[in-house]
């Protein structure tokens, strides 16, 4: 929900100039320090029972994603089946958090995961570029919500953001949030790889949260630089600070480029060390990924049997 009058930051979004003053007044990011901190947290060695816990947690946090022009109903159904039961040979494997598809596939996905706790997330707002008129974007969102999407992943207008037109971005997020209604959670994608600086990522994070995002998400997975430990750490710090100031908890979703169990566990360490256990739950933290799940399953099989598994023992996506 957008900012309310009782809110500590209520007057920030009163006008374009107050918003700009607030976002530019955020402390600058120490890029070297940020990357060093992310790297040092990535060196933790997580073994045995802790690793087993981390793998299951990570599986339960995966937004199993297919966002290709060539997506067919059959592929989406297969993905849904995999999300519900990632490893059919081992029923103790948790289900993933959600499947993430394009709006026209929401109905198919919804049917595929019916009867399970797996959510259906849909990208919307002219994903991935976000270059369309607001009316088109909102129609896109309404389509997805009408088809039953539990979660909507929107992209911000990076062009407007980089041009310094923060109020436009803010209004757009507010409008999309409204179109989501009360039933769907809104994830706001910043496409951090296009924002150029860490300062911009921090500003975008606060902008998204002020506008009522339920989740802030790094990237679309469609550009060269996607989720990195550093930009995810920065966003985790933002949600931590936002909750401290407003009492509102916002989720984080790194997406794209996380392919191995080792990487996923590094992100979980970042979460635990930055925002703590409150976020170690698939309601508040997600991985946008597709190939990651197979690696998690192979590692899980390795822990269970003691021998290394191979791609022949997980599904081909």
């Amino acid at each position: 929900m957008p900012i309310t009058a009782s809110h500590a930051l209520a007057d920030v979004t009163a006008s374009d100039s107050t918003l700009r003053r607030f976002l530019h007044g955020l402390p600058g990011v120490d890029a070297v320090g940020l990357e060093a901190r992310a790297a040092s947290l990535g060196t933790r060695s997580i073994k045995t029972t802790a690793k087993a816990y981390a793998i299951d947690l990570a599986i339960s946090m995966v937004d199993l994603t297919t966002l290709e022009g060539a997506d067919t109903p059959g592929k989406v159904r297969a993905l849904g089946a995999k999300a519900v039961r990632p490893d059919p040979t081992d029923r103790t494997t948790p289900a993933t958090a959600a499947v993430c598809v394009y709006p026209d596939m929401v109905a198919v996905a919804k049917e595929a995961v019916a009867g399970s706790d797996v959510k259906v997330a849909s990208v919307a707002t002219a994903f991935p570029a976000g270059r369309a008129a607001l009316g088109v974007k909102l129609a896109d969102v309404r389509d997805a919500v009408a088809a039953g999407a539990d979660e909507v992943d929107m992209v911000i207008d990076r062009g407007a953001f980089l041009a310094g037109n923060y109020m436009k971005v803010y209004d757009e997020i507010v409008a999309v949030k409204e179109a989501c209604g009360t039933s769907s959670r809104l994830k706001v994608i910043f496409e951090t790889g296009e924002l150029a600086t860490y300062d911009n990522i921090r500003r975008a994070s606060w902008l998204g949260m002020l506008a009522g995002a339920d989740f802030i998400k790094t990237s679309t997975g469609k550009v060269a630089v996607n989720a990195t430990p550093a930009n995810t750490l920065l966003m985790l710090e933002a949600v931590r600070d936002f909750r401290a100031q407003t009492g509102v908890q916002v989720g984080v979703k790194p997406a794209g480029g996380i392919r191995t169990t080792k990487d996923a566990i590094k992100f979980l360490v970042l979460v635990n060390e930055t925002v703590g256990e409150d976020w170690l739950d698939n309601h508040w933290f997600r991985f946008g990924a597709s190939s990651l799940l197979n690696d998690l399953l192979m590692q899980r099989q390795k822990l269970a049997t003691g021998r290394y598994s191979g791609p022949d023992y997980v599904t081909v996506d």
Partner: protein
Amino acid sequence: MSDRLSVFKTYKLYVGGKFPRSESGRVYEVTAKTSAADAAGQGKWLANAPLSSRKDARDAVVAARKAFGAWSGATAYNRGQVLYRVAEMLEGRRGQFVHEVADAEGLSKSKAAAQVDAAIDRWVWYAGWTDKIAQVVGGGNPVAGPFFNLSSPEPTGVVAVLAPQESSFLGLVSVIAPVIATGNTAVVVASEKFPLPALSLGEVLATSDVPGGVVNVLSGRTAEIAAPLAAHQDVNAIDLAGADDVLAKELEIAAADNLKRILRPQPVDNADWSATPGTERLTAFLETKTVWHPTGSLGASGSSY
């Protein structure tokens, strides 16, 4: 006496076309085998070699799997050209290998040179087989029906190769070349005591058109590296040339789990690697694909094809 500082070589693994140290950071001392070993039975120190861990083995399998598609899909002729190129590179480094083999196996220079020459010849011999093996082990099969029935050999996949323990170079070449000639990719565990020629071979492969990951060379304790390879679900076959009887049995049991192809160690401890090898090692890691194709009636009017 020279006043130059001696430049010691840091031997490294060869995995995925790169030269990493062991993930574990461990090394072990490689010593020469000399007739006049000191009281402790140790020859002089030659170098430190990486002591690979099971994670190095896992990484090597990942690299080998990644390389398999392109290598097995290359034309046999092309593979032959690439292997011949390896022989050219070996020839250029002949002096280095003679030196390393002489040190490792305690041979005289001339005997070591004979070993290296035999190894290079062996490599050329296998390079010639790449586009001929299919004709020898494949072909048309006579069947009782109106079908063309054709069998052709295909590579098995990722092959773990335990290199012979005693013959550090000729033995090594004799087990690697046949595996990759047919289009498999290999994870090679070098001789435990004499790994240096194998690690140097990695440098040759890296500079001779062999795509990264087709051959991966690990050094260390054979038993430690071989166990996870034998149990690994993404390894399709294992050559136990360098395993002793006890280890070979353990590995066979582990390998049975996903029905790996197994090439048992030679019956004698010191196999004679200088003999002409025959095609046994080539065919050990091949799968036969058979295709039935209808030809139409073979009626009274005679063949319709």
